[in-house]
């Protein structure tokens, strides 16, 4: 076995140029695949985090009927006693924060311009426990309770040419069908630039009490947003909240971010199917490289194979020499692929990959994505997968050429001129 390995090892370096080409095909192919996996994992996690931190929280408590109509942000399905529910759930240790919110259709008017937006009424004192809006204020400051001020998403502010300290009019629709609305004259206290372009483009935040008055909702809210301590306990916490709510005799729904952002979850699933194709293509490149190299080796070493057979080398041993050769190229190629994947993945994790170089117009077009900077997520598992995959693929790819080698008739092989 040692001799076979020695023979295989030296043969790898016998045709240097070809080995280098195959080695490169494997290392680049699998290296890019590793980077791709890092990016995909990163986007998956960070995109979901971004949605949770700026839009959905972990769980939402909704009045019956609201969820089906949620895209219309209706005001007729409301939670009538939010304080009572909050105090009911106060004891729950799994809950980090609960915030009463109202989502409403609105538009911002500045001078002659008016842009539609999503109004979000928040409890400024609770919001930082549940969402990341406060941390994403890039100009100005966060809201104080009850003050007649407003926070604008950064893209919205830019499009309207508004800055901190400017005044604007918030038109709040009580019913879009009947075109009933109320308007508030508000000073901009802050501009929010979150990691979620959707929020930056279309959302405004005002204090809850202001909205309740303007929308004639008294103490009612459209949702209670819940952040929990440990995301892994999501379904347990959801069940316990659900059962506590049942004691009130209400049929409020508890909806998780996965259901709330189901469109996005579906999109990610679809992408993961597409994503499978990339590793497959890379594997194909590596396989073709190895098969080609090894077939050439078999052809060039036909007489040598005949001589080995004449000396009494068993078919399995001849096969092993070629399989070892493939495996050695595969091992080194995969190690290099891990280095490429590791460096690329590390860069994506540390610095991320921003689409801003494409220009404002294209980034605006892509603002349906829940993030601006794509960050990778590099794991040891990804690198291990790359390494094992490279070696396994190389071995499998060598099998056919190795089989061709042992199928040779020793006499014909010895006579081969080449």
């Amino acid at each position: 076995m040692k001799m076979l390995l020695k023979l295989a090892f030296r043969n790898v370096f016998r045709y240097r140029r070809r080995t280098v080409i195959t080695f490169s095909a494997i290392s680049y192919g699998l290296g890019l695949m590793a980077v791709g996996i890092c990016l995909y994992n990163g986007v998956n996690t960070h995109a979901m985090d971004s949605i949770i931190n700026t839009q959905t929280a972990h769980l939402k408590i909704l009045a019956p009927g609201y969820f089906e109509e949620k895209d219309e942000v209706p005001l007729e399905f409301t939670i009538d006693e939010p304080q009572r529910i909050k105090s009911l759930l106060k004891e729950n240790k799994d809950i980090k924060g609960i915030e009463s919110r109202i989502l409403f259709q609105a538009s911002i008017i500045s001078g002659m311009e008016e842009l539609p937006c999503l109004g979000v009424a928040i409890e400024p004192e609770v919001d930082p426990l549940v969402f990341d809006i406060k941390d994403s204020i890039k100009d100005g400051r966060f809201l104080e309770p009850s003050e007649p001020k407003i926070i604008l998403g950064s893209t919205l502010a830019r499009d309207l040419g508004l800055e901190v300290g400017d005044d604007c009019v918030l038109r709040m629709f009580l019913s879009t069908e009947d075109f009933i609305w109320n308007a508030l004259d508000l000073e901009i206290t802050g501009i929010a630039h979150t990691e979620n372009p959707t929020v930056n483009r279309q959302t405004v935040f005002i204090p809850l009490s202001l909205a309740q008055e303007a929308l004639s909702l008294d103490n009612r809210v459209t949702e209670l947003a819940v952040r929990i301590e440990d995301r892994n306990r999501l379904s347990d916490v959801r069940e316990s909240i659900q059962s506590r709510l049942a004691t009130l005799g209400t049929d409020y729904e508890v909806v998780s971010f996965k259901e709330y952002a189901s469109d996005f979850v579906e999109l990610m699933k679809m992408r993961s199917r597409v994503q499978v194709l990339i590793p497959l293509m890379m594997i194909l490149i590596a396989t073709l490289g190895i098969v080609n190299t090894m077939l050439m080796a078999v052809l060039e070493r036909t007489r040598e194979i005949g001589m080995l057979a004449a000396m009494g080398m068993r078919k399995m041993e001849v096969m092993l020499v070629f399989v070892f050769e493939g495996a050695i190229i595969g091992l080194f190629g995969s190690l290099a692929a891990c280095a490429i994947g590791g460096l690329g993945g590390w860069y994506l994790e540390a610095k991320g990959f921003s689409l801003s170089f494409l220009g404002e117009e294209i980034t605006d077009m892509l603002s349906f994505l829940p993030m601006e900077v794509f960050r990778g997520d590099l794991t040891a598992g990804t690198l291990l997968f790359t390494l094992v995959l490279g070696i396994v693929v190389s071995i499998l790819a060598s099998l056919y050429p190795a089989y061709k080698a042992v199928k040779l008739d020793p006499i014909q092989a010895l006579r081969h001129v080449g």
Partner: protein
Amino acid sequence: MSIAKLENVHKVYHIGKIDFPALRGIAFSIDEGEFLSIAGPSGSGKTTVLNLLGCLDKPSRGKIFLEDKDVTALPTSKLADVRRKNIGFVFQTFNLIPVLTAMENVEFPLILGGLHDSKERHRLTEEILTEVGLKDFFHRRPNEMSGGQQQRVAVARALVKRPKLVLADEPTANLDSVTGEEILELMLGLNQKTSTTFVFSTHDKMVMDFARRIIRLRDGKIESDQKVNTK
């Protein structure tokens, strides 16, 4: 004692739709320690006889015995075992493994034969390489040696496992006459010293002069089989 025996051996090659009879009923026996030349013009069946003796091929008809054991019907894997243990080959084109040194090339059959003691392997390898006059070439690779030196390595490789039979297919055809003669002298010397049986094919008169017995083939049949006492 008979080391190999061919009984009424026929060999027909099928080339496309044409049957080409290479051997038509050959029978002879080889005794231990012989230095035998299979001679004849090209196409007479010399190489076919060596292939059959070397268990690389099977006869279409007839029987082949190695040390009184019928090897005609052995499966391919068993034939490989026979070659591994009992037969050494010397080829016209040397056929050394280019990535291995002289030492490693000669050591290779010992490893294949299952000699695990590396000290013993090295001892046997060095001994035979010294014997063929390559004491200073142990660590050279084939491309760092002349044709004559490479063929010496090949002879050493064929002999290191002490086979019953060494088969050499036109061993001097790729060498100049002086080097060719040296190789034949080397083989003859080893034959006399170790009693290893040598069978080599040739159509070269100079090579035949070294043989102690010459079997001449023509059109797949034995034309003559004579013992000679020359050099």
